[in-house]
């Protein structure tokens, strides 16, 4: 479970990015976080992955207070989160399978389980036939699928996708969303999608949290696997 308790973030230049946010996301939920530019949704993500420190309040993830985490504990905390980015953040000089395997190398998984997990993750995103292609040889949509496979391979409890469809065409965007929903339903993972694409959000009828000027404007359609 993820809880934001009266979370405020003020940047050193005085900008109030988040202003007393209260929010609970249950295990296995699928949540859209939407809002315009400067609304605070990116700050919310950065706080959740412990890239930024909160000014006041508390964020609790799986009963772990993020403010109490020591520097050295942050990487281990992040291993419980799978991150998907708008710009994919792939290693261009590596192949599709190497990109996925790299996520396991980083946390020191043994080779035996690595091979199996990489295969499973690539099967899930239907990229097994392109396992040996370099990342620049695959399309934008496939690159995002690869990023999802990498986020999923270490079996994190939470997947956070920051504008996952921002760099791909509308048709492929649906494919990406279907994939995230499949991970949510089939593997019971919590999925948080940060986006500004209202059309996409309206299509899937999931819980939608709207942020505006650092505050929660609305929180609709709550509940698990609607």
């Amino acid at each position, binding site marked *: 479970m993820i809880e934001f308790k009266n979370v405020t973030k003020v940047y050193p230049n005085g900008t109030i990015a988040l202003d007393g946010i209260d929010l609970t996301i249950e295990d296995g939920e699928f949540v859209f976080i939407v809002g315009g530019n400067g609304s605070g949704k990116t700050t919310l993500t950065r706080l959740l992955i412990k890239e930024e420190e909160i000014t006041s309040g508390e964020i609790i993830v799986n009963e772990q207070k993020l403010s109490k985490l020591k*520097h*050295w504990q942050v990487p281990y905390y992040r291993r419980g989160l799978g991150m998907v980015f708008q710009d994919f953040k792939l290693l261009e000089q590596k192949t599709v399978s190497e990109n996925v395997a790299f996520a396991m190398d980083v946390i020191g998984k043994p080779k035996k389980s690595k091979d199996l997990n990489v295969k499973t993750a690539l099967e899930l995103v239907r990229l097994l036939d392109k396992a040996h292609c370099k990342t620049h040889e695959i399309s934008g949509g496939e690159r995002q699928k690869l990023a999802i496979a990498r986020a999923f391979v*270490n079996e994190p409890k939470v997947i956070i996708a920051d504008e996952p469809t921002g760099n791909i065409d509308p048709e492929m965007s649906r494919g990406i969303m279907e994939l995230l929903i499949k991970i949510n339903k089939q593997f019971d993972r919590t999925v948080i999608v940060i986006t500004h694409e209202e059309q996409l959000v309206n299509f899937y009828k999931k819980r939608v949290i709207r942020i505006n000027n650092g505050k929660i404007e609305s929180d609709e359609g709550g509940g698990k696997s609607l």
Partner: protein
Amino acid sequence: MKSYRPAYFIGEALKGLWRNKRYSIPTILVLLGCLVLVGSSYLIYENVDYNMNSLGLAKEIVVFIDSEATDEEVSAIGERIAALDNVDVANLVYISKEEALAEEADKYAEYGDLLEVLEGDNPLRDSYVIPYLTNEGVSTLVYQLNQIEGIVKINNRLDLAGNIENLKSGILFVLIVYMVILVFVCVFFIVNTIGLAVMARADEIVIMRYIGATGWFIALPFIIEGIIIGVVSSILAYFAQSFIYNYIVVAIGGNFSIINTCPYELVQNEILLGFLAAGLFCGVVGSFLSMKKYLKA
């Protein structure tokens, strides 16, 4: 179970070095140059010491015994010398006049007939070679030796030895100053080289951090990169130093035969170990400084 493979880190470090060769090769050359400069100063110091010893300017005094003294008196003088302060008793050496003559005969073997004029008479005296412990107490020691009955001559080259000791101290001082300055230069170059390698892989590092890589996982290939730069520089510097030194030894041997040059074999292990230690130190410190913020995060 976690299994971080050493081959991964070494492989990444080698790839990084190759990718960053425009900066890593000049850094290796700068380190090599600095190490050879320090090594040359050390070799000058060692050669001064070597020449001091070969000229008999080591920390020792030679006393000659009255030729009329009996064997018992000579032994008694030896015991009195051994009882004095500042005498390195363990290395106190007695040289009988027969041994001294034999040594001279060996030294001038090519003029064999020269000693025949002595017709069995030995003009030399029994002597003691007295090594001393500290320079400070030498004057007192010489005074005390003068008081011992039966000692007719005391040989010490305190002035010359003192001057050469001063020269050695000067060279040692220059050597230390060199080392400090050059360590700063080397560390500066390595910090910059590793810094550039980090910049070249900035995107990869960002990805690693999001995936949950620890600071050590991110930093280790760069630290190994620094160590490789240090070790490669040390080994190359060792061979360069050997070549330069032997070249100079040959030149000195031909033109200044009065100077004895210390054989490289006597100091090569110290040079190699010193270079490796300095190279490793610079490599580790330089790369640690570059990766400090990643190790903290």
